[in-house]
Each structure stands twice: as structure tokens, then as C-alpha cells.
């Protein structure tokens, strides 16, 4: 496996997603940044807490 290519693949994908761009790769799927709003939830002790918002990555495999 081409390590140099793998590194380039990683950097290209990371930079695009970090910039808020959705990246579609044929044969693999789509990487998309998503924002999770703050919301109420219960923690492990059963207490109501306000969860902080979060930016994360959503991957949708091709064909789904």
C-alpha cells in the first residue's frame, strides 16, 4: 500500500471536511461535517444536564 498516497488521501479529506465541505468518493461514500445542537439529556446519575454542542463527522457509505 502506497504510504505517500495514503497520507495525501488523509490530508485532502481532513482539510476539506474541516473547512465544512462534504466530500463524496465514488465506491466508498460521503464524509460530511455535522453540527449537533446543545440539548438537554440525563447523565449517568440521572440528573438533567445541558449537553454542549458538537461538530463531528458523518459518514454515509455508498449505496445507502
Amino acid at each position: 500500500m502506497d504510504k505517500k498516497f495514503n497520507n495525501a488521501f488523509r490530508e485532502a479529506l481532513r482539510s476539506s471536511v474541516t473547512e465544512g465541505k462534504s466530500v463524496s468518493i465514488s465506491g466508498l461514500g460521503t464524509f460530511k461535517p455535522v453540527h449537533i445542537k446543545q440539548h438537554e439529556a440525563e447523565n449517568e446519575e440521572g440528573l438533567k444536564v445541558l449537553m454542549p454542542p458538537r461538530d463531528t463527522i458523518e459518514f454515509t457509505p455508498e449505496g445507502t
Partner: protein
Amino acid sequence: MDKVSHIQFVEDLAAKLGLTEEETVKKLTELILIIKMESESGKMIIDGLGIFTTKGKILTFIPDESFELEINHNYAGMMPVEIEEPKPGTAASSAKTQKEDDNTEESDAVTDDFEEEEFVDVIDEQDPFDLDDDETGTESTSSSKSTGEKSGDYTSDAAEKARKAALEAEEQKIKEDEEEQEEAARKAELEAQAEEKKKEDATAALAARKAGESEKARAEAGKVKALEKEAAEKKKAESKERAETASEKSADKLSGSRAATDEEIRPEWVEPEAETAQKVRSDGKKPAIKEIPAYDRARPDSNTGTIIAILVAAVVVVAGALYLFGFLTVSEPATTTSPVISEQTEVPPASTDLPGIEDTETGISATEQLAQEEAARDVTAQPAPAVDDQPAAPSAETQQTPAPVRETAAPAASYGLRGTMNTTMARPYTIVVHSLTSRTDAEREAAVVAEAGYRSTWFRVELPNGSVRWRVSIGQFASSDAAVEAARQLPEPYSANNFISRIESYNP
């Protein structure tokens, strides 16, 4: 949201690698096949990117921690905020205490337990924190080895000190207020004593004059009658009058402060005509000098109580007018028809100047009233004579005026969205609107927010990976609900996305 198509991605890769697009497509296809094969057999790990696995013939991707942190830079290290406090003695309470003591990372652990799908939005809107690209990097701290979010140098001692400082400030303020009130009371008392003395002098002088005038009139009638009397009876009356005068003098000497007043009255009272009339009228009757006030003693026959009351009222009114307008001469005779009422309604300028007298309508003592008037004068810059010129009603208004003024001048200890940040508050809720890698940027953004009229602050946050964030927040609130409600009132871009947090420590 911007989209990068497969072709664009290939072009980008080709540019990075210096390959042709065909070569790049070929290599990319090989990599995709490997990922699929490896994930089907277990998992395919790409360092710095994530892990591909297959679950039920469906390819899944779990981002690498560094990748996830890079994407979540705006909110990295934020902790869940407890909306309700654990009840003392419960398992939750003890668990919480233990967690706080250990300062362990809990954000991710807690977050993963929750169903988040309904809250997921594609990030296609403007960055809520409006970060520049160069801010997405991390600022490393070599000394940092914390595993959880720590806000600056906050400790429980700091909060305790802040509470103590607030209490001490409050006590000092109360003490100062009490001293000011005492000083005002002393001042008012001295003024009242001086005014009372002036008033008594004026009252006595006026009473003497009025009594002298009425005595003249009565003396004329008495003269006619006196001519018809026998010389012997006249001599007898004269001898009695002399005896009464002598007793009065002795009584005056014993009457303390009243003696001076009587001395002022006496020159008019003992005018020849009046003296003659009195000699005639007394006619065997002995005036009750000791029981009658000074102004009544000048009129021994005392026809009716009404006349006396009228005279008293007139004296008081004229004395008040003299005091107010600064005239020492009585230019107008008193024409007051209701003496009792006039004493209550027309004398207020004098009564309001008497400290220690409680206002019957407002229930405010003169001392308090004086203090309030002083406060009102300070705020409204109205001259004192304007207040003195007004009778009772305006005086009452003056007493009520300072109340709202004092409310508006309340110390900035209350919570709120606007105003100045009160750094004595321990762990208030706040609305985080910026998360920056540079302290300078945080200070600048905080200044921008403050210029908009909001109370703002910035604080340092140490992330799990050792990097540091500087967060800018708006407002101080007693509860998370109040903060959430206030966040809805924020304008763009702050209202679009923010987070409720707690201020653990204030910037120096």
C-alpha cells in the same frame, strides 16, 4: 454547504501528489478496495483519519480522535452543565462530588450515552464563533497533562474568596449607610433646634402685638365704665392690679425659657391705656395668669376660645410666613378662619423642617425625609428652596422621589445580559459565543461584545489534548434556564449558535 465531488477530490489529490488524474484515480480505487476488504474482515485503520469497519454489511467510519477534535475545535472541552442540582445525600450527589474532585474527563463519556440523532444538523451555516482559518490550529501547552476541561486557575478557594469579598463589601456598605444616616440626623436636629427657637421668638412677638391691639380697644370701653365707678372702688382695683402684676412678675421669673418671651411682650402690654382698662375690668377678678399662655395673659378677660384659637393660628401662620419669606414685619393681619386646620395645613414648611417629627401621611420620620430629600437633590439637582416653598403635598412627592432613583442606582450585583461583569459572583451561568486559540483574539472579541452593551468576559480552557482555548462569553445568570432564555434574545451571529456554560474563574 460546499461539496467536493469525486472528480474534484481526485484533482486535489493529483495536485498534491504531482500525479496525473488517471494515476490518481487508479491509486484511489486500489485504496478503496483495500478499505472494503479490510473492514469486512475486521477493521481498516488509517492514522490521523479514522477506522473503517463493517457492521451488517454496512461500511462504517469512526473518525480519529485528532480528526474529530480538529473538526470540533469550536466546542472542544465543553462540559455538560447540570440543570438541576443533585439532592444532598443521594447517590448522584456523591458521585458528582467524586467526579468534581477527581476532575476526570466526562464530556465524551456522557455524550456518547445520549441519543443525538434528533439534534444533528449539517454544518452548513456560518460558523457561530466566526473563527478564521488560522484559528483552527491548536495552541499546545507543554505542561498540560489534564484529562478534562479545566478553566484556568480556578479552585474552590477562589469561589469562596469571591463570596467572602462580596459579603465584606456588603457589610462595609451597610456600615457606611448607617454612618451617613446618623450624620444626617444630627445635622437635622441642630437645624430644627435653631428653627424652633426662631419660631418661638416670632410667635411671641406677634402675640404680644396682637394682644396689645385688642387691649387698646377694650381699654376704650373700659374707660367709659370706669368713669362711672366710685373713686374708692377704683383705688381698690388699682391695689389689686398691683398685687397681680407683682405675682405675675414672680411667676415669669420661675417660668424658665418662657420668661424671655414674656419680657418681650410686657412693654406693649403695660401701655397706659391698656393698663387702665385692665385695672377697671379686673374689678375684683383675678386673672389666672399661671394657667394662661403668654399671648392670653395680655388679654385677661378672654371672651371666647375661638378668638384665642384664631390668634394662635394667625400667629403660627404669620410666623411661618415670616420665616419663609424672610420678613420681620407683620404687614397683614391674620384672616385665617379655621385655626385647627391651618395649623396642620398651612404650617407644613415649618413642620417639615422639624426633624424627629414623624410625617403622619407617609410614616417617614423627618430624619429619613431629610436624607431622602438630600438624595433627591443630589440626583435631580433641584435647589432646596424649591422644596421649602411647597406645602405638604409637594413635600410628600419629594419624599417619594428618591425611591426609584435608589433602585436605578442599585449596585451591579444583579444578574443579567447587559452591564458590567461582576467578578465577585461565584460560578454564574454564561453564554459562550467565541472559542479562540489566541488570548489576544479573545480579548478583542470580548471588547467587541462589551461595546455592544453586553457584559462580557473571556476565560482560558485547557483541552484534553493539552491545547488551550480562550472563550468569550456574554452575561451572568443565576440559572441555566435564565441563560438559555437570554441567549434567545441575542442578535446574530450570537443567537445562531452558542453554548451555556459556567464561569469558573474570571480573567485577571
